[in-house]
């Protein structure tokens, strides 16, 4: 049965369904309702977990490393500056192979101070060795948090997972959400069985140092772990889809097969792109969409198989390149076109910074511009455009 609920509250209810045992978090807009609700349900006895209140996100992630290393199923959540304050600790969580799950309510980075949504926070933390999943709506947030624990704790993976949900656009909307039954979640997600734990009776060392003779091998091993997590993620998503009758994949397509021109995007913006595609259809224009749900590890072979025969590929980024050639998602796609020798025209649009509204009409204009450009008129295809910037 579906229940109308704010997505933030639903996210914490999902953590409860996952029977998290430890939470360490520091409140920050727009993640606040997630951790407030968790704090409530721990305090009132609904959720049997340790809730560590800390003085900063740096400490929140440090405490999470401690509880996870001690063998507890650990959850946290943050946004924007909070994620960046955790930054150095994020790398330690992944290198120690600790299956922490973190919901990131994506928000623009200051300055200028903005509490609104874009992807500049997670994109600045994209290379920290965490698995990164993106959600399009509230239902996906709930299901993805449950799946994230299964993925993280699988002994073939053992890596932390970030579940990204757009701040406000997702975190603060009320949606009808279908919560899975506790007993079904219990079956899908058994107790966490850590490979190693910190325990006074069984001393061992986590986080030792490595000399130049070992560091390369250590990082190579970690890289293999995240690369090899991809088939496991696919397997777990497909198992969840079967058990809970909602279809999940690392990449999802919309109006794809017969379209020569396709968008690639992540997060809630996909819903507006789908609306744009439906409007275009009425004008007999065919446009497709690939929703990237898994950004790390980047599913290059799977995406290449989809893009092989496409004429125009439009990559939507929600963060500035900061002096780089293009937006971060574009860079991945450009690299894969080269690796798989795909000849598609590639376009990059940066949209929705700091909460700027992006409407279906914007994507219709982008489509029209791109289709025109393919006739050889545009010189823009190697650069990016920022939609809606006043010049």
């Amino acid at each position, binding site marked *: 049965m579906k229940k109308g609920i704010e997505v933030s509250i639903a996210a914490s209810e999902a953590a409860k369904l996952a029977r998290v045992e430890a939470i360490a978090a520091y409140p920050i807009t727009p993640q606040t309702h997630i951790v407030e609700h968790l704090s409530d349900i721990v305090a009132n006895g609904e959720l049997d977990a340790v809730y560590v209140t800390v003085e900063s996100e740096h400490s929140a992630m440090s405490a999470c490393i401690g509880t996870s290393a001690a063998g507890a199923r650990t959850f946290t959540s943050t946004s924007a500056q909070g994620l960046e304050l955790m930054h150095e600790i994020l790398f330690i969580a992944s*290198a*120690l*192979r*600790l299956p922490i799950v973190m919901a990131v309510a994506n928000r623009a980075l200051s300055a200028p101070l903005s509490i609104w949504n874009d992807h500049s926070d997670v994109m600045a933390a994209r290379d920290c060795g965490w698995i990164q999943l993106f959600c399009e709506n509230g239902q996906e947030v709930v299901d993805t948090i449950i799946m994230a624990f299964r993925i993280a704790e699988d002994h073939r993976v*053992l890596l932390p997972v970030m579940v990204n949900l757009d701040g406000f656009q997702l975190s603060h909307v009320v949606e009808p959400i279908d919560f899975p039954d506790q007993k079904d979640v219990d079956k899908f997600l058994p107790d966490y069985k850590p*490979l*190693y734990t910190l325990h006074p009776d069984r*001393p*061992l*060392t*986590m*986080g*030792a140092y*490595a*000399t130049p*003779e*070992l560091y*390369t*091998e*250590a990082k*190579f*091993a970690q890289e*293999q*772990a995240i690369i090899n997590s991809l088939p496991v993620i696919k397997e777990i998503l497909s198992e969840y889809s079967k058990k809970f009758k909602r279809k999940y994949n690392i990449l999802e397509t919309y109006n794809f097969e017969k379209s020569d021109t396709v968008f690639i995007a992540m997060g809630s913006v996909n819903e507006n792109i789908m609306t744009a595609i439906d409007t275009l259809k009425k004008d007999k224009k065919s446009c497709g969409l690939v929703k990237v749900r898994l950004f790390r590890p980047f599913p290059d072979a799977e995406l290449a198989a989809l893009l092989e025969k496409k004429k125009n590929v439009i990559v939507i980024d929600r963060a500035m390149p900061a002096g780089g050639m293009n937006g971060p998602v574009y860079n991945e796609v450009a690299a894969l076109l080269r690796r798989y020798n795909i000849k598609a025209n590639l376009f990059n649009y940066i949209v929705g910074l700091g909460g700027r509204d992006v409407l279906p009409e914007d994507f219709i204009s982008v489509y029209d511009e791109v289709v025109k450009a393919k006739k050889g008129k545009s010189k823009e295809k190697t650069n990016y455009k920022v939609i809606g910037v006043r010049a």
Partner: protein
Amino acid sequence: MPKPMEEYKWHELRIGCVIEEVGSAREYKTGGWRSMKPVWDESRCIKCGLCWLYCPDAAIYQKEDGFFTADLDYCKGCGICAHECWPKAIKMVEDEK
């Protein structure tokens, strides 16, 4: 460590580089970092043990006769012992090994 570090292949490392052997840091002989080493003038030493107390690497030990000396497998030659030794019984000298 059952074999020297430079012989480990990436897939032989434990997940997360966990070390299950307790106290394995002992096997890493940090004395190789040293360029200076402490030498004791036992005619000035009053066996107060400040050098032993201050050594950050616990590389100084007391001999049976009560005087102190450094375990050169681990002494990094930092010179803190010589600095703290108020009777000036410790001198740092070039380690010519």
